[in-house]
């Protein structure tokens, strides 16, 4: 059973790794680099909270 579990672990790892690589390729070719890297630190804070003392 343990040996079978070991092979299953290899299988799951390979499938999920390939899925992530596929999704990575799909996202990078679908969206522009400007959009993907458009996150800005503090942006949400500035939107959701007004800082007043």
């Amino acid at each position: 059973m343990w040996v079978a579990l070991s092979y299953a672990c290899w299988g799951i790892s390979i499938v999920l790794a390939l899925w992530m690589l596929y999704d990575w390729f799909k996202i990078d070719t679908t969206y522009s680099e400007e959009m993907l890297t458009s996150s800005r630190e503090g942006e949400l804070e500035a939107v959701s909270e007004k800082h007043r003392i």
Partner: protein
Amino acid sequence: MTIAAEPAVQVQGDRVSLLRVLGPAHVWALGVGIVLVGEFTGWNFAADKGGALAALIVCWIVGLLYTSVAMIDSEVTSTVAAAGGQYAQAKHIVGPLMAFNVALFLVFAYTMLEVSDAILLGDTIVAKAGVEGLNHNSFIAATIVVLAWLNYRGVLMTLNVNFVITAIAYVSIVILFLSVSPWTQGAVLKLNELVTPGNALPYGWIGVIAAFQFGIWYYLGIEGTTQAAEEVRSPARSLPYGTMAGMITLLIAAAMTWYVCASLMPWEYLGITYYPLWDAGKLTGSALLENLLFIATLLAALASANGCINDAARAWFSLGRDRYLPTWFSAVHPKYRTPYRSILFLLPIALAFAFIADLNQAITFSILSGVLQYTFMSINIIMFRKKWPLGSIRRGYTHPFHPLPAIVLFCLCVVTFFAIFLGFGSQLIAMVAFYFLISLWFHFYRYKFVRRGAQFTMPWPKPQGY
């Protein structure tokens, strides 16, 4: 002071950012999830360094160190609510070079801890199986890849899973504690026979100092809660609440763990076993407890690795976003809202270390980076209070007795460095040399790519004296 709250907006036009979906329970799950594995393995090596009583003394003293860490972190993070946690704090309060180093401390500490967790999980399964020729590599690969996939798919599910598996692992410690009649000595527990005046501190007080290195394992990683700052719905409330609740939880777990383990096995064995709680389950004679603690050991390792992937990726992502590293790393997945490139970049690195490094080396590098980070935090809070005194900016939490926690933290870090030097002096020197060289690279080469004004994002008034 007024806070006008509006619904959080994640996508503005063509912009995409991390998703604000987490609450205090997720913060607790992140912090305690990363740490709890230390109760299942790691802390007990303190007994090898200084005996069972030394393991208890460092449990309390290092508990003081981490209580200071949690209080200081809660105050600063409730104010600097950005992914990257201590990195963002360092950037705003100390400066870019410190921030760059702190981010590397974070990435190393969490990646090496993830590696240690995966090795532990693989070794635990192999030990349980007892099948000749069964290798731990498949279990290590599955742990790292499946958890990276979970992190890739979204932070909410990642930390929901962490909450459930951390809670099960924690409850298993409580069940073990209650099952051994902790109120009665002699029935199951034999503390007065196993820890005697003659063997309590076999190497004297220097043994207690040496035990600090592994006492860190009781709580290592609780500061990781701050990495969720940009993804919690209310950072000023959730981060201090989740972090402090996590610290209280861990202090209770550490005390229960020591009491049960020190009362069931002699310090000579306790100090060398890789599975103190699982062994404690076996020693009760109950197959149910043995299996429960076996599963709990696996779940604790999974929860820790899961949280570490989350935190290391966010620190790496933040470096990219500020151009401290190529901006390529700062990409956010438009559907899952996760730093997917950072997660994928760190995945093969973790796998490589897990396949080639041994557990002791990985743990030591993780602890070293962690203690470097805590040393920074003690200096950071002094500068923070000096530059922005109470009343000058809004704080979600204000820690008491300042500067006492900072001084205690700094002193305990110095003692811990000495303890690490006693056991792993060459690794300590190598790591300090690495950070020194990488600092030169950053200062003379990389910093010219950084947009200097854009990196400071907090809407604060000018610091005092500037």
